Structure formats: C-alpha cells, structure tokens
C-alpha cells in the first residue's frame, strides 16, 4: 500500500533527489511534495501543521531555498534537490543548529521544530551571520504554539555568532 490508488487521473513520473538520494516516483497530479515525503518516502520528520501554507511546519529546502512543502506539488519538484530534517544529521551526529536547539531547549512538544530548523538552515546558508531581526523574519511564518520562540531565537543567535559560521 505504499502507493495508494489514485482517485483522480493518471500518474506522473517525478525524479527528485531527497537528502542526496535519487528517487523515481509516479504520483497523481495533485499530490503534494509534503505527502510524497511523508507517505511515499516515509520521511515523517517533515510535519503537516495546516496543509495550506500558514504554519511553516512543513518547511524543507528545495534547491537550497526554504519552501512550504504543502504548497509544492510533487510534479513541481521534478528534477530538483530536496533536503529534509532527516538529511541534517551525519553519521548519527546532529547538525549544529539542531544541537543548539537542544542546548537552549528551543523545543517543547517538538512538532514545529523540524520546520523551524529548516527555515533557519536556509537563512544561515545564505547569510552566515544574520542579525536577530533577520532570524526573526526567517521564522516569522513558523508557528510554535508551545511558545518556544525566545529559545528558538537564542539557539539561532548562537549558531549565527559562531566564528566559523554555519556549514
């Protein structure tokens, strides 16, 4: 049952590189990148908080840019490179941003956390030493109902201030 039956229309071939691995999929036209990641590729670290582009929980990197995967159709991801939260750890070691989140307790229930981390990753990649204001704007679209915001900001600032920058 990994590929549910398509209720409407035919399937489309999609080639996409996810966390460095090439994937070849056949998807219905209206299937979103978020659904493909979670249901077809079993990468459930990317969360659905609203499904309509208003919460940021589904944030992933597409060709290095932060995107709301609930608003990206899988067919639109054809030929692109996608990075999800699962792609951040190397040999079981967490990425510096993830480590900073843990050190600063920037997560409570943790459901928004992957989206927050990915949004900040996109920022730090483009701007290695962002200001507090830039950090806040990068995650303004990411709802944290637990209210971990002060900690998220602290965690991001710590990484932003690291002399060596963010890889």
């Amino acid at each position, binding site marked *: *049952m990994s590929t*549910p*039956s398509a*209720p*409407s229309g035919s399937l489309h071939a999609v080639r996409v590189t996810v966390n460095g691995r090439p994937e070849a999929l056949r998807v219905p036209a*209206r299937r979103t990148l978020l659904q493909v990641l*979670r*249901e077809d590729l*079993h*990468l*459930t*670290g*990317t*969360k*659905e*908080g*609203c*499904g*309509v582009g*208003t*919460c940021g*929980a589904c944030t992933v990197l597409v060709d290095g840019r932060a995107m709301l995967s609930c608003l990206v159709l899988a067919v639109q991801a054809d030929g692109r490179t996608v990075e*999800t*939260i*699962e792609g*951040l*750890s190397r040999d079981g070691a*967490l990425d510096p941003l*993830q480590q900073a*989140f*843990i*050190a600063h*307790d920037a*997560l*409570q*229930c*943790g*459901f*928004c*956390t*992957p989206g927050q*981390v990915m949004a900040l990753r996109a920022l730090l990649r483009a701007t290695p030493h962002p200001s507090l204001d830039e950090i*806040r*704007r990068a*995650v*303004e*679209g*990411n*709802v*944290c*109902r*637990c*209210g*971990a*915001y*002060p*900690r*998220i*900001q602290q965690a991001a600032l710590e990484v932003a201030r690291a002399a060596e920058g963010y890889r």
Partner: protein
Amino acid sequence: MPRIIKQRVEFEGRVEERNVVIEGDDLPVWPAGERFQVIGTPVTRVDGAQRAGGTARYTADLYPAGVLHGAILRSPHPHARIRALRTSRAEQAPGVRLVLSHRNTDAIPWYNGMSRIFDTELRYVGDEVALVVADDAAAARDALDLIEVEYEPLPHVIDPLEAIRPGAPQVHPQGNVLGGAPERYARGDVEQGFLAADAIVELDVTTPDVLHHSMETHGSVAWWEGDTLVIWDSTQHIFGVRRQVAAALRIPLDRVRVLSPFMGGGFGGKNNAGKHTVLAALASRRLGRPVRIVFTRAEESQAAGKRPRSVQRIRVGARSDGTLVAIDYWGVSSIGAYRAIGTPLAGPATELYACPNVRAETLNVFTHTGPAAAFRAPGYVEGTCALECAIEALADQLEIDPLELRLRNYAEADQVLGRPYSSKFLREAYAMGARAIGWERRALTPRSPVRDGPPRRGLGMATQLWGGSGSAPAYAEVRLNPDGTAEVRIGTQDIGTGTKTALTQIAAEVLTLPVGKVTLSLGDTDFPYSPLSAGSQTLASCGPAVRMAADEARRHLIDAAASLLEVAPEDVRLEGGRLFVAGVPERGLAIAELTGQIGNFTIAGRGFRGPNPDGVTIRTWGAQFAEVEVDPETGEVSVLRIVACHDVGRVINPLQYQSQIHGGVIQGLGMALREEHVTDPETGAVLDLGFDAYAVPRITGIPEIVALAVDKPDPIANNLGVKGVGEPPIIPTPAAIANAVANALGVRVTSFPITPAKVRAELGRRA
C-alpha cells in the same frame, strides 16, 4: 494490604472527593537544602535528538502497512435534525471503502449521554454527521461531498446571554444552564461588607473564545491485532482513552492498548478520547485494516474544543487603607454544545485575597457552538482577568500602590475550605518579580485619559493562584540491566512539558547514575497506570512514584552489595554509581559490576504515589509584571517586557521550568491582545478556520520574558516537594497586560483581546 481512604483532591480548579488507595508508607519529603547531583540542574531534553532530528514518531506520523484514511462530514447548521441521509454515491466513489453514519452505527452514548457518536440532532456547525474511509485522505475528503443529507434546520442560539433568556432555543432538553442552576458560593455578608467600604469598583469583563491550536492536530490511528485493539492517539490521557474506547466498543480493557509516546501539544484540548478515536476503531474493525483519522487545521478550529468565552461582572469594596471588605462576583461561561463540567471562573475571586464577605455566582451556559474544553488553567485565566483588573482599579482609586494593596490583603489560609495552605511563597514571588521589573518606576495612573501625544509606558501586574498538587494514583517501575543501565516505565504522557526528562532526572538522582544511563519510556497503557497530563499534575503525581520505584531498586542494590561485600546493608553507601562500605571507599564496586555479577537476576523497583497530606490545601502561586507602551493615537499596545515569578515548589529542571513559563506567558499574551475565535451569530459558522484569521503569536511579536522561580520545596505536599508549572504561567498574563495598559493611559479596557480599536473606543468614550 492496601486500604482505601476518602480524600478531597483538587483538579483543574475544582475540589472533588475521591477514593485514594494507600499501599504503604511514602518516602519522607526531601527537605529544603537537600543536596542533589541531577535534580535542580538544567538537563537538556532526553528526547531532544529525536524531536529535533525528525525521528520522533507522533500519532500523525503513523502510516502502518495497509492504512486507510478517514474524513468526517460535519454539520453545516448550528442546530438541525437529519431528515434523510444517503451514502450510496459516496460509497461508489473511487477509493472509498466505507461510510459510517447513524444508519449503520450503534447508538454509542457520547458527551456523558448528552448525545451519541452519530446523533440525528446536530447542535453546532461541525457536529459529526458521517465518516468516509478511503485509500487516501484526498479520496475520503472528495467523497464527503457525495453524501446527501436532508437537514431540517432548527432554531439556534449562539450568544450565552441570549441562551439564558426565557424562551431561548434549547440546546438540550434539560435546559441551557449546565446542572440546571448557577453554581453559588458565599461567605460572610456581602451587602454589609459594601456598606463598610470607602471605595467600590465595579467592572464588566469579557474574555473571548480562544482556541488551543496544538501544532499536532487531533488524530488517532487504530488497528486490530486479533481481538486486541491498538490505538495511537494524540492524547493527554492514554488510560482515559482506553477506558472510553473499551466502553464504547463494549470490549474488555485488556483488549485495548493505547500509545502516545510523542505528542504534539494539547493544552487541555486532548484530555479525552474524541469521536474520531472511536470511529477509527470501529472502521478498522469493519475493514480489517488500520484506519487513520487526523484532523485538518480547519477542523481544529471547528470541533476540537476551545476556552469558552466569558462574561463577568465583579464588584470589590475596600476601606480607605485598602483592606478588602467585600467581593461580589458573577460570571457566565459559554460552554458550547457539549460539556460535562463547569468552568471554575469564580476560583480566583473567592480564594485569592483575604476577604470576609464574598459571594459568587457562575453560570455555565450551553449554546449552539463548538464544545468547550479545558484550556490551560480553565476558568482561572478568565477569572483572574476580572479579579486582578478590579484590584488594580481599586488601588488606583485609593491611590495605594497595587502591590502594596495586594500585600495588605494577603490570604494566609484557604478561606473557601477553611484550612491552611501546605505552603505559600507568594510574598517571595511578588518581591522577586517587583525587583526584576523595577516596580518602583511605576508612575501613578493618569487621573484623566491620555488621548493623544507620544506613546506612553505603563506597568501592571497580576497574581496567579492555581492547583497543581497532583495526587494518587500513579505508579512507576524501574529495573536495572546487567550492564548497569536503568529503565523506567510509566504510563504517563509527555505533551511537550518535559515530563520525560524531569522523571528521568529523578530516577538518575536516586540511583546516582548519569542521566544518559537511564532510559524512561512512557505513553503506553502496557506501562503502570498514570493519570492524565492536565491540571499541572503530571510531575507532582508521577515524580514521587518514580522516586519510590528507584528507591526500591536502590535498596535492592544495597542489599545485594552488602552480601557481596560481607557487611550489613546499613553500612553500604551508594554514591556516584558506586556501592561501597561506609568509611572505606576502596571496598566497593560499581553498579554495573554488581549487576554484571548477578547476571540475569533483575534488580527492580515499583513505586506508587502516596496520598496528599490531609487537612491542607495545596496551591501554586505566582506574580507577573508587564511593561507596555501604548500609542494613544492608534491604540496600538506593544508589550516590552514580562517578568514572571512563580512558586511551584521545588524546581526539578530550571531550563524546562523557564520554557514552560515562556510558553504560558506567550499564550497569555495572545489572549490579551490578539486571539479571538469568532462564531457568526446568524449562521453559527466559525469565521476563523485555520491560522489565516486566528492570530496565534508569532516570533516577531514576542517581548522580553524574564522567567524567575521561587524554587522552595513544599514541605509536605509530596515526597519531592514539587508542584506543577504547566498552567500557572498563563493565568496572570492577560490581566497584567491590561493593568499596564490602564496605567499608561488612564482608561481601562476590560474586553479581551485588547485591540487598538477597543483602546481608541475607550479613550473616545470618556471624551
């Protein structure tokens, strides 16, 4: 032998008589000044790597092999009867496997018998009409449009004040007031009290419907393994879900297992099984496949519970020296279409201050709107808005410093139940908070409204009173592995509060192991019973049981070491993971050496939560201070700083304690200034579906938050001296902000949220 005693136990602002089983002697309370290695230190989350790494599996992340997806058809009418319902077109739609409705489902009682799983009378926009199960969620949702329903619309009532007028449409045959009458409380003689007053303040206060909006929506995934039902549920109470589902399906408890190892927030909205939980189980039984029902964000706005709006009137009277002589309180809570228990709105007004003459009346009113649910300190947030705004208005009228006025009316004992408090360090919280905000900078509130000019600053404060004692029963098990690592099992939940980490710290402390050598598992009804994660009771209920379980394992370790070392157990010490002869540290061995030697004999311990002490009231306390800047021209309120200082007993983990404070304050801030769930009075429709029109706080709107703790153990509450911190921090925030706004402008907005339009209107009204 266990014995059963009756005890008055506080939960979520209500006191109830409960049978409590006493199984033996509890451990003595760790006194103030006890030296700890792990407790009281800022241990980072033991499951942080899973949560931040994306490998934590929440209910919503479960797609078992063969899973089918459910979608729910909901009533478009606030009140209607189903005349006819045809499902054949939906059943034939591509991918659809099953449609459930009242026509093919048992009349399972729901909402305490007020309704049933599929009722033919619908009482709010969003009430469940039918379930479609299909191969994928999109197919299930598409098929909802193919279900044909003939509704007979019935008269409805949305506003709670209209609902209590004679002749109003009835939500339930028993009438629109829960319990048939207001809840009343009185002590002394309020009329006499007001006669003795030199100053009287009367305020009308309203608070809005507020939504929980946990980031993980409500959801259940159910399947059958033979005759055993397995349910993953995003819940605050796995054992409660098990009990409700077993009753609904009429199957024995031992045939239901409920799991919730990771949970994406609840805030009170997930205290019970939902209809979707039972429906997933029913559909799975019919289809022989796993069924997953996860709410959309829009359903979360319609049918997932809310903090019900309140309409309150409060009158307080005092002598010229500030001594309170009378409090008269009246409040209405609009509990929606279904609710079994009332909202304890009057809690703060009746208990917070020493006052001989108090009268309170609360009405819990049914309306044709979405059901209310507990939401982080239900009733007390709303009630504190009324009481603490009135107290500060009174202080202004008497020209007494508001903090001073509060201290003059400090309640040394519980006047409602007529007994002492187990501990109360509210004076300390006041002092620490006042110092941190610089309360002495507070200027007198302007005598006349400030209508124009540059933005003005103001300082305000409010007090927090709440339960959070926890209680029996709760159980835990600890066992040691041959390699010296320890495992703890407890059937509680970590809803984001850090329960798992705090409980791990307690076990590690007792066993003198590093936190990394203790693995705690929770969220599974196969583990020992624990209560629901609500009422700020988790740590204070489960923590003492974990300590006792670890202590029993520790005693077994010592006994085993004593026989190996050939000394009496009294002469064996356990420190830093090493067992040794007292005074002869070199004569000893590490825990792992001992457990390794005894092989597969397992050292284990079981612990229970002892009863609460008799004859005392256990409360949490706190004070918050807000500094705001208000632009009189636009009415815009900017919160610059919130200082929060709470007395919740001993703090097990200061890092997580502060995170809880941040979270509560931020939700309080949302309620104070922005959040409002709106129901159209004409159609009963929810006007804020999802996050688009409902303003949850975002990172850009967050002020500086200073989180302080009194951090003194309660001397008798339980063997750890802890109380809960989940709910306390949201309680005083809206009132503190409102008071700061009043201090800035000289006018008082008592209708929450305090929007710029309301500020402008209030300034205009006084012109």
